[in-house]
């Protein structure tokens, strides 16, 4: 199927990285769409956890917020938020944490806190929420992001959550035992960290994307893998599933009183 948007490709590529064995800590937006597409296609037994305390949810529409009612109604169990962060996240029970980013560097360090100086910010962003501990407590971290030079930068303004720091064994040196960012999926490509330096390297270009397009939308000098692949285009099933999900979601979210 060739008629798809870059955002659709990004979401579907992310969904393919998930399996039925995964326990995912899901953020709102592209991660939520990717996780639910995976659940509705090749990974029906995947466990989705939202930080509102809903464990094992199977929403029919994507939640607008992290705590929409349907998450609770379809969950195996809904626990208090302190328990969520203590037993489930800190307890090491989550295999995959999904994060988005306002700014990211080549080592997967993420800023969602401020643009500019912390105390005199140019733009005050929402902040970390669950991200600082998601980044260190989940087995591994998948990041999704639309490429742009202002968001993929040489140096982020604030370490909201730690990726591979300065690269290499920086995580181990800080006593962090989890893998950190192992996958970066953008609207143009799939990136994986170099095994040694931990610098994110493009391993697969989405259909129709060139190396130049990736470089032009990235603020650092991009490394490409020797055996660079092309990301398979979305299947009809994947695309239909995603679009149906988005359509159901759109209808549901417009349904409020003020609409």
């Amino acid at each position, binding site marked *: 199927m060739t008629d798809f948007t870059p955002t659709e490709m990004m979401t579907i590529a992310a969904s393919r990285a998930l399996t039925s064995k995964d326990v995912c800590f899901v953020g709102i937006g592209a991660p939520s769409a990717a996780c639910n597409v995976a659940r509705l296609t090749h990974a029906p037994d995947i466990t989705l956890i939202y930080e509102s305390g809903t464990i094992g949810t199977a929403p029919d529409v994507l939640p607008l917020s992290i705590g*929409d009612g349907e998450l609770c109604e379809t969950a195996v169990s809904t626990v208090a*938020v302190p328990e969520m962060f203590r037993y489930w996240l800190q307890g090491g029970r989550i295999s995959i944490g999904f994060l988005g980013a306002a700014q990211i560097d080549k080592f997967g360090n993420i800023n969602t806190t401020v643009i500019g100086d912390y105390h005199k910010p140019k733009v005050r962003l929402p902040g970390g929420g669950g991200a600082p501990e998601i980044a260190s407590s989940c087995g591994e971290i998948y990041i999704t992001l639309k490429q742009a030079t202002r968001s993929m930068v040489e140096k982020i303004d604030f370490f909201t959550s730690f990726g591979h720091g300065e690269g290499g064994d920086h995580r181990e040196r800080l006593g962090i035992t989890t893998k950190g960012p192992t996958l970066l999926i953008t609207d143009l490509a799939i990136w994986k960290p170099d095994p040694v330096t931990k610098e994110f390297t493009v391993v697969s270009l989405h259909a129709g994307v060139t190396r130049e397009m990736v470089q032009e939308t990235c603020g650092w000098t991009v490394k490409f893998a020797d055996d660079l692949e092309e990301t398979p285009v979305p299947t009809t099933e994947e695309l239909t599933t995603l679009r149906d999900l988005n359509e159901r979601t759109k209808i549901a979210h417009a349904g409020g009183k003020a609409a």
Partner: protein
Amino acid sequence: MGKVIPLDQAVRENLKSGDTVAFEGFTHLIPHAAGHEVIRQGISDLTLVRMTPDIIYDQMIGMGLAKKVIFSYAGNPGVGLLRRMRDAIENGYPRTIETIEHSHAAMANAYEAGAAGLPCAIFRGYKGADLPKVNPDIKSVICPFTGEELAAIPAHRPDVTFIHAQKANEKGDVLIEGIVGVQKEAALAAKRVVVTVEEIVPDFKGLHPNLTVLPHWTVTAISVVKGGAHPSYTHGYYARDNAAYLEWDKVSADRDLFDQWMKDNVLSATPEVFAERIKGL
């Protein structure tokens, strides 16, 4: 304890200017009606504690009632930024506010420690993150058995916690169900607890024994406000008004539009209007 009184009285008797106050509700059960009453009474110089400041604090900050905000995610959930809070931080409008910023894990642990009567919470957090550099309330302790350095933060002990719940019984016991968030912890951590509820029922007969119930002797005041969580929702009563959250992004983007909206929808309103707002949800 647990006495049922009108919301304006409950707010007046329990919240004073200069207090530290938490309004909790994790997306679900956010006590908007109580927040509007605080705004109408103009109670100011507040230290606002809340994981996700959300529309409810965007409104208080925009009205100039906050001197400090302790928080972990300053967004309009699923929509974007909090524009009145940004204006205060970036431009000092309508007044400057101090911010104490944490992660969600830290905030949840701080409420838990407050409920547990401890002075601080200990958890594995902030590894490699920059927040400890800008928040002096983030310290550490060493595990005396393994030598691991763990994050330590002060417990939350608000003067008052406001929450919204499904119902109370005639004794004043309060039931919270669905996404329960940090409300039990925020309530038990506070010196005084004010709860708005959808309704009061004679008793809780037939209720499952393991649900989240705040016994009447842990609650200071209860006010019945039907729809009192709107545009948030009450599981079992009405759905989230997602469109209102989207609308807020526009209202809050403009100072004058905001002022007019607050005048029309808060300052000249009463708690009774919430029942109208949830019709059809």
